[in-house]
């Protein structure tokens, strides 16, 4: 067991966390709705799974009020940062993932195939999520999803 080197967050990082938190503090009372925690994480460049979010939320929620207070959010987030818990998914990794699904190596997926995977495996999509994804990714003309093209267009830089 060794102590992590930097236990105290520097002000820059602190302000970044504060900024992300405050963007959702609609009542200006230093709390955010737990439903927004996912978005806050993502905006900071983390990629937690739904299960990760659930765990995090259950640890920091204010007595099942539906809200998380800054005072509990900050230490928990600090831990996340130090342990680099939810690292981003690189483009290469993503490409590999798509290639696993594209067994015949055609360079594209059919909408039905993608739907099959996304709605039945892992942490399944809702119908709404699936519809949106298909609308965003499907090529107009031949109704294929050319994942290689899609990936760079939609990747956003990690903010931290």
């Amino acid at each position, binding site marked *: 067991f060794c102590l992590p080197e930097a236990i105290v967050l520097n002000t820059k990082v602190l*302000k970044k966390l504060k900024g992300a938190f405050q963007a959702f503090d609609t009542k200006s009372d230093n709390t955010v709705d737990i439903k927004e925690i996912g978005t806050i994480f993502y905006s900071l460049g983390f990629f937690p799974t739904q299960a990760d979010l659930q765990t995090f939320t259950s640890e920091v929620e204010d007595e099942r009020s539906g809200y998380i207070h800054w005072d509990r959010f900050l230490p928990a987030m600090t831990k996340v940062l130090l342990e680099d818990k939810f690292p981003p998914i690189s483009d290469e990794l993503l490409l590999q993932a798509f290639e696993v699904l594209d067994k015949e190596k055609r360079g594209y997926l059919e909408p039905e195939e993608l739907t099959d995977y996304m709605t039945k495996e892992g942490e399944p999509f809702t119908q709404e999520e699936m519809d949106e994804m298909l609308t965003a990714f499907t090529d107009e003309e031949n109704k294929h999803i050319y994942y290689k093209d899609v990936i760079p267009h939609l990747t956003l830089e990690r903010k931290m």
Partner: protein
Amino acid sequence: MGCGVTKSNHLHKHTTSTIRAAILIQRWYRQYVARTEMRRRYTWNIFQSIEYSGEQAQIKLYNFLGYLMDNFTPSSNERNLISHIFRENEVCRDAEWERFFCYKNIEVPEIYSGPHLTFPLTVEEAVGLVEAFRNKKQLHSRYVLQLLLETWKLLRMLPNINRISTCHSKEITICGMIKIFFDSGEKPYVFNGDFVDRGRDSIEILLILFAFLLVYPSDVYLNRGNHEDHIVNLRYGFTKEVLNKYKMHGKRILKLLQKIFSWLPLATVIDQKVLVLHGGISDSTDLGVLARVDRHIVRNQHVMNLRRRDTTAWREYPLTRTQMWTPQPSAGSSSVGPLSRIPNPWEPDIASKILSRREEPTLNAQINKPEQDSLFLSTDSGSSDTTVDEWKQILDLLWSDPMTQDGCIPNEVRGGGCYWGPDVTEDFLNRHNLQLIIRSHECKQEGYEFCHNRKVTSVFPSSSMTGFNRGAYVKLGPDLVPYLIQYQASSMTRELTVRQSVGRTERSALRVLREQLFAHKSDLLCAFRKFDSENKGLVSLNDWASTVESVMHLDLPWRMLRSQLVTCKNSEGTIDYYEWFNELAITGSKTDVRTHRLLETLYRHRSTLETIFRIVDTDNSGFISIQDFRQTWKLLSVYLKMEITDEAISDLAVTIDSNHDGSIDIDEFMEAFRLTDKKSRKKRMEGMEIKCTGTSY
């Protein structure tokens, strides 16, 4: 593939690596969607805060006009200009108006392919109008004027407060704005204001609204919103839209609309229990008073009566202004704890912010002699105090917003109306024996919001300006329990993907924001230098953010926006601010500091300036004389406490009058900014595109 296969077969078919791949993709996609949502939120915030600051400037404009009224000298040149400005507000006899708006000699040519209307209007014609507009037809000005005249006649009969009742089977629908889903059945609809200034087809929407009002007079109810006001329209684009679409008769149409807006009812009460209005209430709102005012002349009266103050009252002019926005301190409100964004109105520095000036105006104003009255309104008035109160009542109704804390304080963000708390709601509802308030006025991302123990419901449609928030409307049955129906925005958003619609809106929001930043360059520069003690021209990212925050007074997440607003960056996490200003620059290499400041100020206040010009241009010709231009600018500079020499103004005027004919084309003047802006904006956009999603339209 996978059709009709059971789950256990799936598990056999899909190996662990497949499952892992799927999870990864899901995770990544959700993250992407969430980030898009975040950007959508910022964009929305940007528009909102800029719109609010626009509204704030609007009220300042009113103040400025009132200030003009009070403070000119009989012998000065300004008097002509001011009488020129306010000739607009003369009240004509009704017969004169009817003559002015006569449509009878307007011919509709054979080749006109738009809809034809006959009066009294039929349902088929109203429905036909909707169809025609959908097919991008334009209604001929003759029919427009006719339609508006009939509307005006109808509106004049209506009381200030509509009263409707639900029968056992009828449901009432309350929309934030018009949404075209008229059934053929007789279902009452209440439209809650802000019909215009929300997109490019405001006049068409208005015409449809009025058409259905004429055809179903007992089923369509309109409430006035703060955008149903001709000065607001000047700023926000409706005026321009009408003048563009109706080049010959646009001015008449606008004048008639001005009258119509002033005649719109102020609120609607359903079953004596539910109050529907556009903005909200204050702790002094009294429906009894509101029911009795002459709603169509109250504003003019206000402006008029400020002039009638005697010497002692003039010294109290600044205080009177404060009283416009500050309600009487009520018990307990001063003991409210620190509010993070809303300042305490009774602190001296806030008070002075609200006031225009305390010291002697440099126009050497004296008290106006009574005989000047003949230049202005000729109507008589009641006691001046009552009229001020009436004006405030209406203002509160149209501009206020609810807040979570108790009390009632001036609405600093909008510059008009107030923020009111749950205790005020409670008190108001009890006093008037009501149970619910339904209002609009604030853009809500979900389209609706409850507050004050569910006694206040805000409902807002999607704005075609941003086009991506969800809209909502309210249905109310005889049980008076409201239920909300939410919908996604227009068909346009469905066609664009989430990514595209956010990208487009975001870009326009960012562009507006960059313009604002540039307009504050001098202040920002000063502030940056304070952090840059060694004069290296560099500030840290953090210092950049806090500086911008304090100078711009816009409540936005600057740290998160930084990467979109500053594309030049040093590797150690610092920003070269001179380089950044070059990035934002719109005027190229103007080395003359004085001219630069002038231009910058002009740019910053260009909306106000444009609005004033358009007011000065009373015949809506698009031109104002050099003389008027000089005087307007001079007055504005006094009001803004700027120091501009006569020489500088003259130089400016001469430069702008490019053909030396003694008049200035307003559009050309404003376009001068936009043109130079367009060039550098294009460059910036190209640079952005490469970094961004790479989507092209």
